[in-house]
């Protein structure tokens, strides 16, 4: 018996070591499976309702393109993890993706890693032209004359309001009007707006104020100028709403605090992207007490800041024309079926969708669509734009928290950003 246990012990130890050894080998889907199908790995960070919709679009594509032997395997990965994984697996041919959906603002930064396959021939292959797409989304995929991103959508920030607390006719069209209305509405435990002081949507409101007034974050030589007079005056204005003599927002609103107070009926306005229309159930419930309007100062064709999701191709995995064309086919399919994508709370980049009766019936998207037509994505061709945007976000947060004055906060953010760029040389 003793001998039996001794030998069993030895055998188990040996097996464990062997399992560990072989377990380290990478296993993944080849591009072509045993039946001759092209299997495309598609990574995206759409983890909410938009993710479920994208999965349905992928499912339908797989069904319709079964005869053409193309299959797409979608992998939903939270955005932060996606970029980390993309960096670490881009050279692993067995697990790296072929198509990745990402924000246009991340393309220039990720391009430093030389991972993208340019899609300069995609317009010709698919027979599409720039006029068919929202301008900001179409241009947002082009970097140094090469197309690295193919547009999916545009997502501006808009103004949600509580219909029980404000009439549609009272809605503000300028930020000054917004402040005055908020002042009038701030009483009896109800605030005009719960302005989050933590790193949040407030930075998007600030950047919108900046761009709609003709401001920018960088000058022509990509020197950061988001501490100039105009930017300081906009942050001052925002800061006054929280820390001024007549505050229209409670202080110290944390992440998600603005949403909670709005849904509790304790604030009139709430700012967020189009995806929230599903969280509020606005598409299913036309009688909802929540409405959506464009941001102040964007209604007369003024520019507004927005984000845009784009398809990108990975050069390490898209190694032949056959694979590339299959990817193009999938991208075009998603574009053409983006009415479903709109229902998930996005503004499709393909303009012809906007003209359909079904799209027009999506009333809550109207404000976002109007804004998307005049949207700008910022100086995203600059490889450090995304970092600058984050430093600017910290400055907005510090000012709203009352930790620093708007001037101090913005100047420090610009200096920090300059330091960051200098250190990137080493």
């Amino acid at each position, binding site marked *: 018996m003793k001998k039996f246990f*001794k030998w069993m*012990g*030895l055998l188990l*130890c*040996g097996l*464990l*070591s062997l399992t*560990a*050894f072989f377990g*380290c080998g990478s296993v993944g889907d080849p591009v072509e499976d045993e039946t001759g199908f092209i299997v495309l790995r598609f990574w995206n960070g759409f983890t909410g309702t938009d993710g479920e919709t994208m999965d349905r679009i992928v499912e339908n594509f797989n069904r319709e393109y079964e005869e053409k032997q193309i299959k797409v395997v979608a992998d939903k990965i939270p955005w*932060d993890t996606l*970029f*980390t994984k993309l*960096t*670490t697996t*881009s*050279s692993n041919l067995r697990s790296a993706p072929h198509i990745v959906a990402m924000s246009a603002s991340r393309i220039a*930064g990720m391009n*430093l*890693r*030389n*991972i993208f396959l340019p899609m300069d021939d995609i317009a010709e292959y698919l027979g599409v032209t720039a006029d068919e797409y929202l301008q900001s989304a179409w241009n947002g995929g082009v970097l140094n004359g090469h197309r690295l991103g193919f547009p999916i959508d545009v997502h501006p920030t808009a103004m949600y309001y509580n219909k029980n607390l404000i009439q549609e006719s009272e809605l503000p069209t300028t930020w000054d009007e917004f402040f005055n209305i908020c002042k009038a509405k701030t009483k009896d435990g109800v605030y005009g707006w*719960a302005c989050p*002081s*933590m*790193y949040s949507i407030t930075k998007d409101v600030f950047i919108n104020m900046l761009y709609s007034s003709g401001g920018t974050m960088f000058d022509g030589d990509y020197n950061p100028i988001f501490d100039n007079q105009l930017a300081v005056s906009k942050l001052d204005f925002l800061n006054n709403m929280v820390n001024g003599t007549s505050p229209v927002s*409670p*202080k*110290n*609103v*944390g*992440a*998600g*605090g603005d949403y*909670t*107070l709005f849904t*509790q009926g*304790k604030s009139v306005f709430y700012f967020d992207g189009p995806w929230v229309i599903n969280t509020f159930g606005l598409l299913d419930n036309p009688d909802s007490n929540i409405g959506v309007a464009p941001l102040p100062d964007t209604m007369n064709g003024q520019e507004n800041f927005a984000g845009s999701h784009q398809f990108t191709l990975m050069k390490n995995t898209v190694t032949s024309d056959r694979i590339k064309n299959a990817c193009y086919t999938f991208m075009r399919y998603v574009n053409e079926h983006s009415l479903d994508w709109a229902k998930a709370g996005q503004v499709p980049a393909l303009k012809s969708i906007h003209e359909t009766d079904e799209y027009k019936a999506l009333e809550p998207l109207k404000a976002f669509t109007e804004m998307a037509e005049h949207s700008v994505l910022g100086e995203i061709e600059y490889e450090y734009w*995304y*970092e600058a945007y*984050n430093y600017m976000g*910290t400055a907005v*947060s*510090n000012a709203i*928290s009352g*930790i*620093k004055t708007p001037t101090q906060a913005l100047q420090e953010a610009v200096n*920090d950003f*300059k*330091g*960051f760029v*200098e*250190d*990137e*040389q*080493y």
Partner: protein
Amino acid sequence: MKTKGKKYIRAVQPYLFVAPFLFFFVLFALVPLVMGIAISFTKWDYASPMEWCGLDNYKLLFGALGSGKVAKDFWSGILHTLLFVVVETPLLILIPLGVALLITKCRKIKKFSMGFFYFPTILSITTVCILFNFLLDTNSGIINHYLHTEIPWITQMPYAWISIFLLSTWWGVGGNMILYIAGIANVPQELLEAATLDGANALQRFFYITLPCIKRTMLYTFIMTTIGNFNMLGQSQVLTAGGPDYMTSTAMMVIYDTAFGGKNNFGRACAMSIVFAAIMFVFTFVGYRLQIADDKEASV
């Protein structure tokens, strides 16, 4: 021949038993350590080929190169980490000990109490942070609601740190408590009974019998808790996002952001990890030596 084979097996046997551990140790500890040291002398973003950069990464950390921003971020992260370690480690050693002593005394509710205090430990840090975010929200959180206050628990200093300490203590008490309960159960009953007969009160029995008997458990919890606290990341990342104004940003957060946050400076992140590991080693070693010295003094 048979005897020779037996001898051979007997000689090889211990190594085979050690092999699985050795394999994993080499693969997941030794190789990454050596690679980390090597990578710290390079400029590498994972996707591009490595570039040898000598001591540049270390110079950046000590402010001898560049704008000084890397050094500022890193050392402020180290200071915040030390603050967390200095405050949280005693809390996570003393509170679990107190709880373990109480639970050992109250036998009727022992099992329930163990489950009650251990429950938070099984939750992920993300879940705990989301829970505390709801509880501590300034304007709509339950805590402020019942206290009738407007304390900015997460958005202002020093409350952001207080929230992190509260959360970490609630989350971490259970793990050490279980170890102490096991340690206290092994204290020889005859010693306690003899001390009682000699007229020792509860406090004297605790300081002169229980505490010396669980010294090894305490040493273990001290080392593990200190290392765990040095590696604090989730609380700062999820609850306060390093804010306000980077004041709760820890060393691990700076290292993580450097490696994965933006530009993927793996070389710089490795240099940070090496310096951080050295600091961590010094603190843990000093603590260990102090406890051992204390132990020797007591035994003399």
